[in-house]
């Protein structure tokens, strides 16, 4: 009988425990010694990570369902309570959040002097928000945890209050995300008015076979908040503003898991709630069009940046575009590839952000031009460590085997080819090469001092990005910083080597996409999985390794071309035809919140137009 399901009863604790700890910090944290606050916060993150691991092991065999307050619906299958549901993918995201949190906290040990215990409390609230969002099985509960994530994230972004651009980035982030959340709430209200239900499993049943335009509109509005979080063009403008200014350890969480949770929200709502409605006819089109636009635009913007964190932010957006494009083929194999891609991306992108944080700590800048050759000034093993972590992470981002990002990309490419999208692999390779090349270009300039020392260093708004950190007067980089960054690279590499991880990811994706299984588990307590059908991919194969190596080679070529451009004959400089749209593109990313809201409105209209049945 499911009422004796201990795992289900304990599942909500993953959300409750961090909030409880954060509440204690808010109440008495100012009176506690800093070490205790740091250690306690770390311990809570480890506990959540441990609980997540246990839940992940259990979800390998069956789903975990929790009806809070025992408001499990009776025989009719409609109830008044809130359900949480964990399958491998959802609990995997929660575990990813906890892991990145542990690493970010390790990196930022004594990082902030001024904010006292507030930083730690906010981090715990942020963790609780992300976990709750991943587990929520109710659209209004999704909204609540979305906002919890948001409130903590806005404060964390603006934490360096003495830096005006940090405050402004936080305002843009807060306003754009809130506007989107309210549109989502209108969407939730429409769904509620239409069905009288909020639970995803119930919606799955009652919306099935509904082919009206109304359902499309409700879905578009409901998804707006998630699309903004996922930084899909044209909803993406807040992201680079926020990532450029947020404290580096926070960026690890933003890029590695928060943005991906937006995409997860869209998928969860569509795959469970709206899978059998008129949305299904157009969702692939939406993912393809928006994803392609996102990937191309962000890859170009990525190449144009010299502010390292902003460059990494655009690389994240470009990756989101690739995720969307790959998911547009809509089968479990592509979702499995993307799931691995997300994990691998989180690891290497986190390592890159931490490297940026170390450079900022050493040289007070994250500007590629100012930092030209600076990496060589890092002496001894520390310098070797930072330079090689940066290089490995950059290559891993481009898709170097055996990094998990490369494996995920390779699986997604295979899935796209098999689904008849022959343009898929070239597209993924080009975008990966461009963004990976941009990061490698920074490595060449910063760590090697390649090319000519760039001119025009004093451009405004590029450097002087001052972070409130414990000022380490010593010569050495604190070990914890290098260890945190190195750990992420090792994780990113090791994940790609786990035996049969591709097969396991495919099974997990299959289960995530199984709406009937979800409904049976949540509403009727049948939590077991049906047996897996069909063949599953085996992981790295020769084809995938070759394509990945091709991607890395292309990325190296892009980087070398960018660094050595001054040696080329004048005819190879970009012609005016290219430079004009590039200038326009830069002007569009204006940093003004009014513009961003206008783009958001346009995005809603465009998404609805693409999705509406012809």
């Amino acid at each position, binding site marked *: 009988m499911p009422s004796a399901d201990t795992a289900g009863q304990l599942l909500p604790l993953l959300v409750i425990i961090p909030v409880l700890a954060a509440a204690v910090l808010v109440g008495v944290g100012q009176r506690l010694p800093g070490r205790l606050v740091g250690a306690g916060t770390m311990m809570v993150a480890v506990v959540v990570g441990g609980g997540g691991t246990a839940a992940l092991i259990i979800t390998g065999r069956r789903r975990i369902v929790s009806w809070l307050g025992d408001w499990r619906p009776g025989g009719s299958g409609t109830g008044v309570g809130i359900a949480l549901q964990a399958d491998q993918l959802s609990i995997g995201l929660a575990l990813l959040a906890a892991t990145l949190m542990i690493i970010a906290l390790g990196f930022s040990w004594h990082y902030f002097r001024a904010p006292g215990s507030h930083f730690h409390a906010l981090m715990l609230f942020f963790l609780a928000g992300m976990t709750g969002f991943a587990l929520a099985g109710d659209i209004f509960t999704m909204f609540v945890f979305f906002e919890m994530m948001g409130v903590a994230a806005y404060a964390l972004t603006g934490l360096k209050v003495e830096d005006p651009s940090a*405050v*402004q980035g936080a305002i843009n982030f807060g306003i754009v995300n809130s506007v989107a959340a309210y549109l989502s709430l209108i969407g939730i209200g429409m769904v509620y008015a239409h069905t009288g239900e909020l639970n995803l499993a119930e919606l799955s049943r009652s919306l099935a076979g509904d082919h009206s335009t109304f359902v499309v509109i409700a879905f578009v509005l409901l998804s707006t908040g998630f699309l903004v979080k996922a930084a899909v063009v044209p909803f993406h403008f807040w992201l680079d503003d926020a990532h450029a200014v947020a404290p580096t350890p926070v960026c690890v969480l933003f890029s590695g898991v928060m943005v991906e949770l937006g995409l997860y929200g869209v998928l969860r709502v569509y795959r469970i709630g709206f899978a059998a409605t008129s949305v299904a006819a157009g969702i692939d089109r939406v993912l393809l069009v928006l994803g392609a636009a996102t990937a191309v635009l962000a890859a170009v913007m990525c190449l144009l940046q010299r502010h390292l964190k902003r460059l990494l932010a655009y690389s994240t957006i470009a990756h989101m575009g690739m995720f969307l494009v790959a998911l547009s083929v809509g089968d479990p194999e592509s979702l499995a590839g993307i799931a691995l891609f997300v994990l691998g991306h989180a690891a290497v992108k986190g390592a890159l952000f931490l490297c940026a944080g170390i450079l900022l700590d050493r040289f007070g800048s994250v500007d590629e031009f100012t930092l030209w050759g600076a990496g060589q000034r890092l002496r001894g093993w520390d310098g070797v460590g930072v330079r090689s972590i940066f290089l490995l992470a950059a290559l891993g981002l481009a898709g170097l085997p055996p990094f998990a990002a490369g494996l995920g990309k390779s699986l997604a490419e295979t899935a796209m080819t098999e689904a008849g999208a022959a343009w898929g692999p070239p597209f993924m390779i080009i975008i990966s090469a461009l963004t990976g090349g941009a990061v490698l270009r920074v490595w060449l300039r910063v760590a090697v001092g390649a090319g000519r020392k760039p001119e025009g260093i004093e451009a405004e708004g590029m450097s002087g990005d001052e972070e409130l950190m414990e000022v380490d007067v010593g010569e050495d980089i604190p070990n914890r910083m290098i260890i945190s960054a190195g750990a992420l690279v090792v994780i990113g590499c090791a994940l790609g080597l786990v035996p049969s991880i591709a097969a396991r990811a495919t099974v997990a994706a299959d289960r995530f996409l199984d709406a009937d299984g979800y409904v049976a588990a949540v509403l009727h307590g049948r939590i077991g999985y049906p047996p897996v059908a069909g063949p599953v991919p085996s992981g790295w194969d020769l084809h995938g390794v070759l394509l990945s190596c091709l991607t890395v080679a292309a990325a190296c070529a892009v980087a070398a071309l960018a660094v050595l451009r001054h040696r080329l004959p004048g005819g190879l400089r970009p012609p005016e035809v290219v430079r004009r749209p590039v200038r326009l593109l830069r002007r569009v990313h204006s940093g003004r*919140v*009014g513009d961003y809201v206008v783009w958001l409105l346009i995005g809603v209209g465009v998404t609805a137009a693409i999705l509406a049945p012809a």
Partner: protein
Amino acid sequence: MIGFLAYYPYAVAGAIVLLGLVGIAISRDLVHAVVCLSVCQSGTYVFLLAVGYQYGGIAPIFGSTVHRGTPVVDPVVQALSLTDIVVSAAITSMLLALVIQIAKRRGTVDPDELRSLEG
């Protein structure tokens, strides 16, 4: 006429949301923009409450005059609105705190004059 009345409250809610959005888009003052955000959110309250209304329904507080069978309006949307209000208050306070800081650092709250993020 009946058709118009059947959708009028929803239209009002949508108009409030859009007005709030327009306010943010054309705002020359971040405090104004944050207030417009609250206006936008007020539209969601109106919408939720309109969704839960029933002609002849009264407040869902049961007692000596309101019995089990008495038609009441939907308590669920009222509870959702309450949650929504708290969220709004929290976000508004957070954004206003950020606006205070930007006013101190930059001496202006006109988003068009704050160009530091261009790049």
